[in-house]
């Protein structure tokens, strides 16, 4: 077995590494095009003469996250196995975003291997990686691309050297194909048979000659997911599918209000005597453990029955009595002031409200924990496993080295698994009971006590004179975002951000490194303020924190500006954009989507752009707001307007797997549609009303567009940008813009149905979860 390390620190060496150095250098050049962008504005005669410059143009969140991984890039290793396969224990989480496939393609290309001989697994928590085991900010492929290739290239060169040494011969003229090394005289040897001979006793620093882009055979070609067969046959294993001896089903009876805690169980003996139940125990609510009353039993079904039978005395929660309107008032009071008005200019101003929305993947929070007096073993989908390991050790009073954290395949995340709530809770329960547990949250708990996208407002004021935009001011005000996960520590260490109780320092860093206005709108200011301590509500990134909301507010105001100047929304954007790549995706989306085609009354097109993660995106949406469509009846379902067609043009720099990239954009589009039109949580009296997928209206088939076309632009870089969250902002904004044009009304609160009468009867809060249905055989088809 050969283990090799790739280190970016070697890039600046002369010799074989020069190609790397050049490519990275270009990468940085591509990352810093501001002055060029400014100069390009001159070729657009229709553009206003008041250019805009923002610091985020030069250094953004992607740069920060990637920079944080560089000191430990040499710890990224690939292994060559005797059976001819190559293994990579990836220090990132796979939650559906497809990075196991993209990374396998990258390794296969660099090593001249067939894709099916690369095995990508998920690494256990590795504390020595420090900041290099965090899956977030759509950063994985951007940060892994070079280290993985360097490691793979070094392995390949080492194998070639071993082949020459073993067979005897000159090093020149050797060819490699499909894991077989062939010497000029025709003799050949496979990777697998050299795995031992190529091994080195210790890591040494060597240069790596990376393949030029023109030599890629897999990168840039559409490849199906490496786990597709396992998925369609039911063999893919998620945390709850693992068999850990003694880890019986365990659930928690949760408080009727957010962050409430259990004070006493009034019928413990009765519940303990229920069929199948083995344990009942109070788990205190802490800063890290949601808690309540844990029940453990033979089946999850019996745990559900036990939870419903529990009589618990509950303490207060963190937001008792509060409703949407209270939070909205608190946000309004905290909004940072806009600059002084300019009486000589025309002014447009609007405030947009974005309600709470769930952070739920389809797999509910879950984890397996086996805590013993001397150590603990944890299994869960974790995007920040090093932090989780450290915190679990602290919570349990164990040394970090006594805690093993396995990262399982995740059934979705969207940011949720940056937090380790289920792992913390499972560990606490296992320690208290002295038994292994397989913890699963009920769906209703996930909605009501789970993590949510923070409610926020975005106020925008634009001034213009004639056909020039003079200023664009945006004041974003949000319920505090929780940064207690590893990203917070990363920001402290990398960016010098001071930790605070309310984490505003972290939030502002993320905001300042992501919010942008890609137009020549003169003086641009964007600022964030937050309310409440971080643990007042349980918040997290939900496929972005700020970008979709910032983008929606901005793009709606762009449409208003276009109207005010009597210009078409597409042509206005094309004229004012100060970025060549954005103009290219905008042009592509408009062309493929046939922007401006005749639309029936009550229907309309909308178009919007977004820049983030080193990428550019433009989305064209067609929406149907006709009464016939809005009034469609679906039993226990919400219909409303339907987005009928989406065209999405995306430039991610270097697309690794266009098929997977299109899938990510498609998913982001479904999120964008939901967030604009239907998907939110209603806060009433200290709890969220939604308790099932028939209450929280994520996109369903009846609201799925009949046509979705994603166009992957040709490479504009030697490095991949981000994808996981990149489909959301532009599609949400385009949907909002299309809604405005179809209805002739400016939507100012999102989703647009949030303030309509509730479309469902809220489930009770005591007991906290509904009974399991019994009518399954009456609903077959």
């Amino acid at each position: 077995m050969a283990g090799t390390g790739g280190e970016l620190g070697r890039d600046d060496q002369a010799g074989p590494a020069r190609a790397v150095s050049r490519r990275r250098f270009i990468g940085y050049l591509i990352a810093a095009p501001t002055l060029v962008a400014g100069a390009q504005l001159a070729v657009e005669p229709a553009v206003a003469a008041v250019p805009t410059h923002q610091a985020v143009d030069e250094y953004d969140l992607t740069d920060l996250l990637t920079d944080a991984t560089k000191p430990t890039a040499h710890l990224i290793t690939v292994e060559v196995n005797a059976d001819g396969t190559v293994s990579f224990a990836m220090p990132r989480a796979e939650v559906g975003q497809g990075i196991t496939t993209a990374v396998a393609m990258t390794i296969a290309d660099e090593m001249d291997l067939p894709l099916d001989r690369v095995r990508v697994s998920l690494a256990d928590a590795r504390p020595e990686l420090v900041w290099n085991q965090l899956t977030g900010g759509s950063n994985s492929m951007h940060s892994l691309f070079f280290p993985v290739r360097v490691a793979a290239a070094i392995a390949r060169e080492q194998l070639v050297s071993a082949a020459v040494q073993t067979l005897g011969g000159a090093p020149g003229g050797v060819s490699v194909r499909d894991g077989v090394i062939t010497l000029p005289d025709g003799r050949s040897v496979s990777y697998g048979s050299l795995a031992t001979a190529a091994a080195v006793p210790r890591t040494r620093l060597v240069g790596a000659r990376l393949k030029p882009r023109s030599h890629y055979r897999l990168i840039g070609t559409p490849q199906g997911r490496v786990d597709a067969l396992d998925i369609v046959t039911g063999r893919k294993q998620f945390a709850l599918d693992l068999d850990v001896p003694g880890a019986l089903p365990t659930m928690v009876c949760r408080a009727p209000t957010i962050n409430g805690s259990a004070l006493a169980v009034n019928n413990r003996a009765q519940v303990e005597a229920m069929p199948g139940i083995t344990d009942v125990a109070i788990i205190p609510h802490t800063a890290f453990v949601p808690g309540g009353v844990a029940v453990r039993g033979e089946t999850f079904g019996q745990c559900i029955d036990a939870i419903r039978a529990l009589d618990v005395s509950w303490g207060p929660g963190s937001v008792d009595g509060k409703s949407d309107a209270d939070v909205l008032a608190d946000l309004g009071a905290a909004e940072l002031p806009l600059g002084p008005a300019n009486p000589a200019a025309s002014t447009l101003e609007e405030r947009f409200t974005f309600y709470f929305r769930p952070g739920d993947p389809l797999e509910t929070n879950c984890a397996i924990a086996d805590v013993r007096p001397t150590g603990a073993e944890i299994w869960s989908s974790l995007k920040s496993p090093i932090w989780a390991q450290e915190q679990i050790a602290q919570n349990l009073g164990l040394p970090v080295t006594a805690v093993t954290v396995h990262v399982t395949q995740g059934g979705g995340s969207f940011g949720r698994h940056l937090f380790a709530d289920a792992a913390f809770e499972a560990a606490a329960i296992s320690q208290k009971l002295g038994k292994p547990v397989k913890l699963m949250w009920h769906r209703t708990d996930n909605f009501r006590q789970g993590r949510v996208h923070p409610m926020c407002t975005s106020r925008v004021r634009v001034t213009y004179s004639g056909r020039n935009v003079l200023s664009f001011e945006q004041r974003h005000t949000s319920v505090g975002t929780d940064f207690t996960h590893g990203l917070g520590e990363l920001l402290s260490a990398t960016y010098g951000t001071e930790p605070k109780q309310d984490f505003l320092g972290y939030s502002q860093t993320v905001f300042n490194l992501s919010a942008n206005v890609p137009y020549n709108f003169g003086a641009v200011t964007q600022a964030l303020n937050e309310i409440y301590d971080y643990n007042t509500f349980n918040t997290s990134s939900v496929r972005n924190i700020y970008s979709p909301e910032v983008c929606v507010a901005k793009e709606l105001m762009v449409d208003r500006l276009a109207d005010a100047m009597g210009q078409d929304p597409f042509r206005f954007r094309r004229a004012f954009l100060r970025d060549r790549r954005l103009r290219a995706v905008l042009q592509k989306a408009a062309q493929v989507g046939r922007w401006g085609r005749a639309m029936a009354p009550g229907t309309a097109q909308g178009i919007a752009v977004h820049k983030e993660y080193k990428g550019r995106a433009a989305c064209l949406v067609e929406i149907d707001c006709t009464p016939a469509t809005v009034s469609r009846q679906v039993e226990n379902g919400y219909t409303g307007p339907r987005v009928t067609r989406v065209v999405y043009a995306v430039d991610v720099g270097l697309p690794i797997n266009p098929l997977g990239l299109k899938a990510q954009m498609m998913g982001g589009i479904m999120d964008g549609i939901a967030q604009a039109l239907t998907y939110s949580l209603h806060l009433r009296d200290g709890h969220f009303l939604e308790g099932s997928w028939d209450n929280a209206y994520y996109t369903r088939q009846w609201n799925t567009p009949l046509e979705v076309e994603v166009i992957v632009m040709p490479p504009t870089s030697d490095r991949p940008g981000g994808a996981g969250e990149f489909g959301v902002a532009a599609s949400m904004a385009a949907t909002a813009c299309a809604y405005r044009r179809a209805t002739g009304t400016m939507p100012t609160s999102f989703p647009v149905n949030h303030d309509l009468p509730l479309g469902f009867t809220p489930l009770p809060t005591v007991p906290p979860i509904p009974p399991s249905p019994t009518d399954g055989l009456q609903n077959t088809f």
Partner: protein
Amino acid sequence: MPTHTFILNGQSVSVDCEDGVRLLWVLRDLLGVKGPKYGCGLGVCKACTCHINGRAFNPCSVPVADIQPSDEITTIEGLAATVGRDLHPMQQAWIDFDVAQCGYCQPGQIMAAVALVEEARASGRPITDADLDGLRNVCRCGTYPRIREAIEAAAQQM
């Protein structure tokens, strides 16, 4: 404790369990059949969709005592065998169209899709957009457009 007998993926199985335990937990927790997933336990998300005597149903919503000894339960693990192949055409279409992302909901999606196509075929008509709109399975990754494409393609092969 009562014993419950039924046919699971072509094999007769017996399990000792309280009458009221829903079939999903009998499959997953007692029989170790993990293809059907828990997504809500309320008959809403449809992640656990399986077949009973060839019709789609949600085992999270059926007490095990309601299952008769002659009932044939098919989970995703047993789907291919119902057509005597390594993969059912619907599973193959899922691979061909690279439908899955995280994959958690997809066993249920596939089982529902097969029943939808069979139902349309039984009434002698092709799959329509209205049929596809009627699928209630939640996919939080948002794979819906590819699900529609895959179903339409598989319907030609079934």
